[in-house]
Each structure stands twice: as C-alpha cells, then as structure tokens.
C-alpha cells in the first residue's frame, strides 16, 4: 500500500469553513493543517516576504484535541504577532503531543478571518496509506 499524498481541500459548509486534511503520517497531517490555515489567513491578510518562525509545543488529552489545540495555537500567534503560518518542519507528533518549528511571514494587519478551530465533527482517522481529518473553522 502506497502512502497517500499530503493535501487539503475546502469542503462545503453553510457559514463556516470545513477543511479536509489528508497525509501519509501524523507529522505530515499537522504540517498540512498549518499550511491550510496559512492559506486561509493569507487570502484575507495578504503577506510579505519578511520571514518569522515559531517553535511550538502542544500537549493535549487526545489526538483530536491535539489537532484543535495546534491550530488554535497558530491562530493565537497569528493574531498577536501579525503573522501567518506557511509551513512546518521537524514535527514530532504523538497522540498527545506535537512539537516543531512553524515557518511563516509577517503581515501588516493581524489576520482575524478565522476565529477558532472547533471540535465540531472532528475525528483524526487512520485510513489506508495515512490519516484523514476534517476540521471546521469558525469564520
């Protein structure tokens, strides 16, 4: 069985943003989540080439909560640092802990389109060749 390619896709939701994430392993899934959030925020706030990285470590009670807390940590950094995540590297992910470096760029106005990542309908699910998750952002 070949590993699935990392990807994200915006799905239909009447008022919010539902994003499907697919990746060959948990590290790639969390990286894809950061990239999906960054793309959404960049559509609102634009961007610069002024790079800024953040080392992030999150501990949560389970894998679903870990993904939500990871995204909400990036949202907090985005809004308080006027920053957008672009990519992540060297992610170490267990079912209760994620640690790694998030690469991003500075923006002139703090992005505020996404209010939070929610638990609604969220399940990080093992699938053939990797993992899949759907997360709803409150916008």
């Amino acid at each position, binding site marked *: 069985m070949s590993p699935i390619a990392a990807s994200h896709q915006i799905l239909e939701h*009447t008022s*919010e943003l539902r994003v499907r994430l697919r990746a060959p392993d948990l590290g790639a899934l969390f990286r894809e989540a950061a990239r999906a959030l960054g793309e959404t925020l960049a559509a*609102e706030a634009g961007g610069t080439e002024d790079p800024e990285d953040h080392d992030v470590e999150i501990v949560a009670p389970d894998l679903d909560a870990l993904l939500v807390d990871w995204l909400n940590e990036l949202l*907090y950094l985005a809004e308080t640092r006027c920053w957008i995540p672009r990519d992540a590297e060297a992610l170490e992910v267990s079912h209760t802990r994620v640690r790694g470096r998030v690469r991003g760029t500075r923006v002139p106005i703090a992005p505020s389109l996404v209010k939070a990542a929610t*638990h*609604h309908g969220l399940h990080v699910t093992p699938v053939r060749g990797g993992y899949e998750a759907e997360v709803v952002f409150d*916008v």
Partner: protein
Amino acid sequence: MTAIPATRLSPVLVEIPRSARADMRVPARIYADETLWEAIQGDRTVDQLLNVATLPGVTGAVYAMPDAHEGYGFPVGGVAAFDAETGIISPGGVGYDINCGVRLLRGDIEADALGARLEPLVHELSRAIPSGMGRGGPLQLSDAELDRVLVEGVEYLVERAMATPEDLETIEANGRIPWASPRDVSTRARERGRGQLGTIGSGNHFLEVQRVARIIDQDAATALGLREGQCTVLIHTGSRGFGHQVCTDFVRRMDRVMARHHIHVPDRELACGPFASDEGQAYFGAMGAAANFAFANRQVITHRVRDVFTRMLGAEGMLTLVYDVAHNMAKAELHEGRRLIVHRKGATRAFGPSHPETPARYRAVGQPVLIPGSMGTASYVLVGTDAALTESFGSCCHGAGRRMSRGAAKRLQAGHEVRRVLEEKGIVVRCARSQELAEEAPEAYKDVERVVDVVHRAGLARTVARLEPIGVVKG
C-alpha cells in the same frame, strides 16, 4: 435531507417531538414557513438543534429561528434555556464571537440630503474604522484600562468622553454585564483583545449607512425616533480576538471536566459544565467580561462614526443611538418564576413592553430588535412582544441567515461583479478584498423579507421599519 418526524403547528412553526431521538430531553421547535423549512433541512441545522435538546437541564423546548443554519455545536439561530440549578452552560452555545451584535444610530439628516457628500463620507468612515489590529492598534489600553473595560463596559467610555449617559439607556444591559469577572480571563485573551477595541473585523461584520425606506408601524417608529427618508447607521461586530480566546479557553476547560460531572455530549463542541460548578461560574464571568468588551467595541466605533459625521456634515451630522442588541450570549433570566440560563447563538432578545429590562423610553412599544439583511439588501427594525416571552424565551432571529457556503457564493459571482451591482444601485462600497464581497453577496443569504415576515406572523416581534443601504464599509 434528514428524515425526521415533524409536525407543523402553524403556518410559521414546526415541532419535532421529544420522541424523535432517544436522547432528547425536550422537543425542538423551528420557526419557519414551508420555504424556510425546506432550506433549514438542507444542511445539518436540525441535527445540531436535536443535539442541543439532549443537554442536561434543558427546559421547555429548544428553538431554531427562521434564519437558522448549520453552525458548529449549536446551530446558528438557536435558542435553548437551562435550569440554573440543575442545568449546564456551554461556551459553544454562545460561540466564539461572544456578544457579537448590532447597533443602530439614527441621524438628524435625511439620507437624500447627503448628495455628493455620501461618497467621501463612506470613504472617511472606512479610514476611521479599521478592520483589525495592525502593529499599534487604534486605541491602546493599559492593563488597568482594559480591566475597567471588562468590568464597566460602556460606562467606562462615558468617562473617556466616547459615550454619553444617554447612550447607556439604549444598550442591552446598559452596556455593562454586572457579573463580568476579569480574573477568569486568560492572559492570552487579554493579548488578543489588546489593541482591537474600535475594530470591526472580517467575515460578515460591516458598517452600513442607510436610508429609512419605509415605515410600517408609525407609532412604534415615532417612539424609536425613526422617520421615512432619515439617514441611519448600522454597526455589526463583536468581541474580536478577546472573545474568541475566551471561548477557545473554556471549550477546552469544559471538555476536560465533563466526565467528572457525568456529562456526555453528542458533539464535542457542545462541551459544557453545570452552571453552578466552579467551571460554569468561571465561564459565565469570563463571558461577561467579553460581552463588556464587545459593547465597548461597538461604542468606540460609534464614537469614531460620530466624529466623521460631525467633521464632514457639521451640525447636521448628529447621530443618536436607537439600540444595541447582542446576538451571541448566555443570560441568567427569570421565566415563569424559574431562573434559567438562556443561550442565544445567532438570536437576539425580543422583550416586550412590560419586561423590566426593556428601556424606559421604549416601554410603550417594546425593546427594539435589529435584523440586518445581507450586504446590499434591506435591514429591518422590529420591536419585541410580551408574547415572545412565553413563545421563545423572549427571543427572535438575528439576520437573514446564510443559505449558501462561501465557496458556492464565490463560484456564483465574482467580487468585482458584486461590487458593480451594488454600485449600480447607488450604494457606495468600501471593501479592501473583492473576494469578501463575493462571499457576502446577497444571493448567499436567505430572503430577509421572508424571515422577518415569519417572526412577525409568529408574534415574536412586530415589524416597524425597513432600512436600505446607501453605503457599505466592510473589513
């Protein structure tokens, strides 16, 4: 489409019995005519409403308003009340934008009298009211000043000469939630809120310059100071990053303690705790602080709008606050002698003339209810009724309600096309991103006329006036 047993109780009300699902504790009631009922069944609104009906201490029935649509956890347009002693409070039942709400200002000037001054006026409004925080926000607050905003709400801004004592009389709760508790607010929420007071945000938040197009109830309009042809300003925004972080913090905190309280929820975003528990009380206090932040945010924006109006129009530019109403909030209220925690998510209060919280100056007609339509279509002013108290815990809809995803809206029409259509109607548009115009296009929303007709016919509120936009500022 969800297969559910539903009974139509009237032309504007559908009931789903408690027996529809084994875990429901109360029935669900949906205010909708046939057209809106069909739309509401098109997404997960009903499933989400039935989930709410399973929560501990829920009382009476859970309600969806005619503008209801799928949200996360609670549906948007949802109302549910929980016993204060045996029931829960749920951060997700209020939402991330705590005390998102609407306020309406009425002008001395007629809309048509603006003439060629309209375009520069809207342009100046867009410059004076930022969408968000840059490096150095529009109003920098010290820790002590932020604490005063969180405790005193708009009252603090009277001292700062950004509000008048008369303004306080026409804001829900007089612009100050008395149970607000800043000590239950995280450092992160403070960080996110700092510098965001006086910013309107993105998404569906906006500021509109309008014309009173039609008076439907003359007596009520007179009581509210509204007349045909008058210029009005509508402001729609909430507690910004401050409220978002408060909700984020407490969804996680409730999630951790539910097992201890033997609470099981069908959707994790419904995470909740007993209202009487330490966690319930802490959330209630933090939510109150965020609500005060939101009232103050709309007031700072009002101050800047007034400044622009008087600077550009002189003595003709006077603006008086008609009302400010929240549509994402949990309130402790007495209903038929019971103390209930009424959650309104995408729903507003609609208290009638005899309710003690209706402002004294509106006792003859009822509390103003403000229902913004979609961008470029009409908004409505209504007044609450005493009947709404027994019908829906004194609640009403909060807008037109989305019917189309943002993606579908963008596929339907490009942003520049939406801008062209609005400008052809004579509406001055200031919005930095055309994409956002496409996402908020009128076609993405339900027909506000139909939504208002349902609440009027259901007796939840009485229609007073129709307002039409002449200028739109979006974040």
